[in-house]
């Protein structure tokens, strides 16, 4: 077995040192009646690298890869081009096979990278401090809600969720709230060109610990968050802004500039890839120094070594489970370190100039798609504003249209029926995402297929 270096001779010699007759003697604490005598039945025996690769390739081939289709899916996971050097760097064994940097003298590579990552995220979000990552955008979102409850010290119990928050994120928050006893105010969105900010503001009251809005929102709309921030702050509530497309922030104002208190999001767009939903990268940042000690997750900070050289360590860990146990700010331990590296390398390759160009190229193609699709009979475009994703209405169940087009290798978008199965009013809605990887030809393919299917 290729991953096991011990030889039979080694095993005998080691048993002799230990003073055990055989390896089973080492398992003597396992009750005899529970001990298995041979390999578990029904499972295959060991296989060669070649055989395993073949099996896995066969499974892989059954899936339609995004790059082999005209591809328009988004809704919290976006297909972007990832430079080849990103994957090269994250496969270096020193990064790939390291653990959490608990011994900083031999983990400066990971630590300096995390310090750079935290800085990049904080600047992108317009925030003061970002942490070293969470699992994904949805768990970062509920950790932010939990943090806001902590800051309200249990005195405020209401969480106001925008209807235009990603429904999976809302589900995660609602799931956790069942156990933390926070009260959730939430409804699915109406299909309007403008989000109902007034309605959202009207739901904020003195019992509200936080308001959660997505920017751009689940329907792709982009609006000014400052009025919501002002209304929240007036009632002593925090504004949590969720961003699921970091590339957008190369083109639109940062949430921090508009009064957000906590900014969280999904970082998958940069460096990480689609991967059928995971591993992804949760981003988490705060705008105020006074909230840093309430943050969940790891933080990397600068310090010096015994010779006065600059170095980095994990810090403020008295917030964390390994020190504070049941009083910790979160139970998170393993996070998304390697995805943070991928994000950071991609961001470094882009730089500010590249990020802005990338964002504007996404937007240019999305504008083109909006224009073309609005000419399809039966299609209406919902959005006035958008970045690289927008909602169209088809006048018929969009789920069916999506399935029909998938048969022609056109992945047309995410139907609102899949995202909001309980709301029949949304069933004709389709979310369409366009990135730099989308070609004008792809857009034409989608438009003409829709023309055919809808006629």
């Amino acid at each position, binding site marked *: 077995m290729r*991953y096991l270096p011990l030889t039979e001779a080694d095993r005998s010699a080691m048993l002799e040192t230990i003073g055990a007759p055989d390896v089973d003697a080492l398992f003597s*604490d396992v009750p005899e009646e529970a001990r298995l005598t041979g390999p578990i039945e029904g499972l295959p*025996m060991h296989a060669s690298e070649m055989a395993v690769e073949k099996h896995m390739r066969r499974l892989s081939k059954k899936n339609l890869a995004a790059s082999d289709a005209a591809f328009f899916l988004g809704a919290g996971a976006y297909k972007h081009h990832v430079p080849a050097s990103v994957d090269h760097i994250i496969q270096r064994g020193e990064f790939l096979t390291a653990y959490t940097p608990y011994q900083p003298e031999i983990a400066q590579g990971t630590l300096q990278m995390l310090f750079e990552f935290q800085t990049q995220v904080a600047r992108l979000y317009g925030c003061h401090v970002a942490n070293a990552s969470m*699992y994904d955008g949805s768990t970062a979102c509920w950790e932010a809600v939990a943090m806001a409850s902590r800051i309200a010290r249990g005195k405020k119990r209401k969480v106001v969720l925008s209807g235009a928050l990603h429904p999976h994120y809302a589900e995660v928050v609602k799931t956790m709230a069942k*156990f933390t006893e926070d009260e959730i105010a939430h409804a699915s969105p109406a299909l309007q060109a403008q989000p109902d900010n007034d309605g959202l503001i009207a739901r904020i009251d003195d019992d509200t610990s936080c308001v959660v809005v997505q920017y751009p929102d689940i329907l792709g709309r982009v609006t000014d968050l400052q009025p919501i921030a002002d209304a929240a702050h007036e009632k002593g509530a925090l504004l949590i802004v969720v961003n699921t497309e970091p590339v957008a922030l190369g083109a639109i104002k940062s949430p921090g500039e508009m009064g957000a208190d906590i900014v969280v999001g999904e970082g998958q767009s940069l460096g990480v890839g689609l991967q059928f939903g995971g591993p992804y990268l949760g981003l988490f940042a705060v705008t105020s120094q006074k909230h840093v000690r309430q943050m969940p997750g790891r933080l990397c900070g*600068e310090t010096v070594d015994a010779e006065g050289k600059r170095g980095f360590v994990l810090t403020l860990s008295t917030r964390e489970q390994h020190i504070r146990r049941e009083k910790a700010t979160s139970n998170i331990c393993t996070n998304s370190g390697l995805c943070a590296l991928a994000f950071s390398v991609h961001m470094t390759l882009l730089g500010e100039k590249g990020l802005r160009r990338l964002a504007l190229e996404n937007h240019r193609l999305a504008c083109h798609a909006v224009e073309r699709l609005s000419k399809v009979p039966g299609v209406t475009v919902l959005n006035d504003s958008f970045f690289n994703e927008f909602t169209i209405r088809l006048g018929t169940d969009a789920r069916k249209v999506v399935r029909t087009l998938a048969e022609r290798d056109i992945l047309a978008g995410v139907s609102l029926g899949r995202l909001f199965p309980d709301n029949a009013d949304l069933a004709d809605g389709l979310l369409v995402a366009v990135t730099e990887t989308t070609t004008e030809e792809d857009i034409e393919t989608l438009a003409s297929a829709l023309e055919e299917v809808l006629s």
Partner: protein
Amino acid sequence: MSAPNQSGWKPGTPVEDHNAMSGPDTVTGNRALMLEEPLLFEVGHVETTGVDLPEPSSAATRLGGMDRAEAIGLPGLSEPEAVRHYTRLSRQNYGIDLGFFPLGSCTMKHNPRLNEKVARMPGFADVHPLQPVQTVPGALEVINELANWLIDLTGMHGVAMSPKAGAHGELCGILCIRAALEARGDARKVVLVPESAHGTNPATAAFAGYEVEDIPATAEGRVDLEALKARLGPDVAAVMITNPNTCGLFERDMKAISDAVHAVGGFVYCDGANFNAIVGKVRPGDLGVDAMHINLHKTFSTPHGGGGPGSGPVVLSEALAPFGPLPYVVRDEDGEVHLVEEENADQYGHTQAFGRMTAFHGQMGMFTRALTYMLSHGADGLKQVAEDAVLNANYVLRSLDDVLDAPFGPSGPCMHEALFSDDGFAEDISTLDLAKGLIDEGYHPMTMYFPLVVHGAMLIEPTETESKAALDQFIAALRSVAGRAKAGDATLKTAPHYAPRRRLDETLAARKPVLAYEEPVAPSGQPTMSEQGGR
């Protein structure tokens, strides 16, 4: 610039330790292959990019008037500069690929490269989580095949695949328990957790709204069954037991513990972080466990990546499986695999799910790696994994217990990790000092100060992927460092001497937190470093 590099090193900084390899100071601060690397923010430039993208057009935007006007402050590097920046950083890291990494409780085993290759196949890496299910049957098969392995290896009834790491899995399991209790109208308040448990256990129980109480331990390092029985009652929702436990010992009374907990209507959560010791040797389902997370990034070899990502599927008993969160995978009578989400939960009879723990389906990229690993080892190989892991740990234990105090050594064999205390060290030498001494010997230290029940704990987990020769060299090194610790060798207090950095000031870092880079303020009239492009 006057400073040749940004490391804080300056020519002429006195080297306080004269035992270090002496030689002339260098202008660059480098020492041959040990290369200093400035921060990205000191070498990059906002106008530099390593990606070719078209010039923006002047066409009007439709961004709702929210166009970002202010500078963001994100420096870029060209591709050659970026590759070099990160390659240099990587060389300041220790990884399994480089050497022995006996970090107890973390299972730092070899990460096979076939796993990496498979995870990157386009049909896995390049599929969107919300693609129509008809376009992803292979992805669902991977999830289902892995689910079957996990169920068969643990003897459990069902599995929730979506949790993102061990701690997330713990939360999933405890929430299943809470949902099951609520479904029978039974509001219980307390979760019992041993003091030796990992910090995530009490943190999880508290997050799920429970009061946490300690379970007493015996002098042998195991759960005190009689004391536990005395504490059990109608207020106890669950006990969380780690088995093998964090002292590296198998909980012999596991079945009796489960029976006692069930007798009072509670549930048994097992922290499966240490499953590597028993995979293929014993099934937790046969010991009465109701829920257990499995760290795919430990037992099943997916890489730790400097802190993550991981994956923490939770196997569930028949009593808890109906409450498993969405999305869930079921196989129907015809053997077809279905993805259960909110929209079709009724159709597949999975109507009691307690909710959703994450967007999308969990850590697919870890599933493909873990399944590849399982297929490589097979049922026979996984059993050998557990046997070799336990053999290696016992070999380390018995090769060192004459020089280091092994508090539970006399009570019998250990499982996959060997635990020592600092008993016998010279007064001013600590476990931390010994660990830093091991760094100079070229090793990543063991886990220190965990579990909390042993003074100055040192928890050594060699894993099965180390050869006898590698263990022998480590044992020789640790015997030497332990001897120095007992003799009070002062050079241990200043170790490491040969790492890229000497001991770092963690107190300073916490007292004056610097958590993001800020450009130095230039003397008036002079451009700042970032305005100059950092050069």
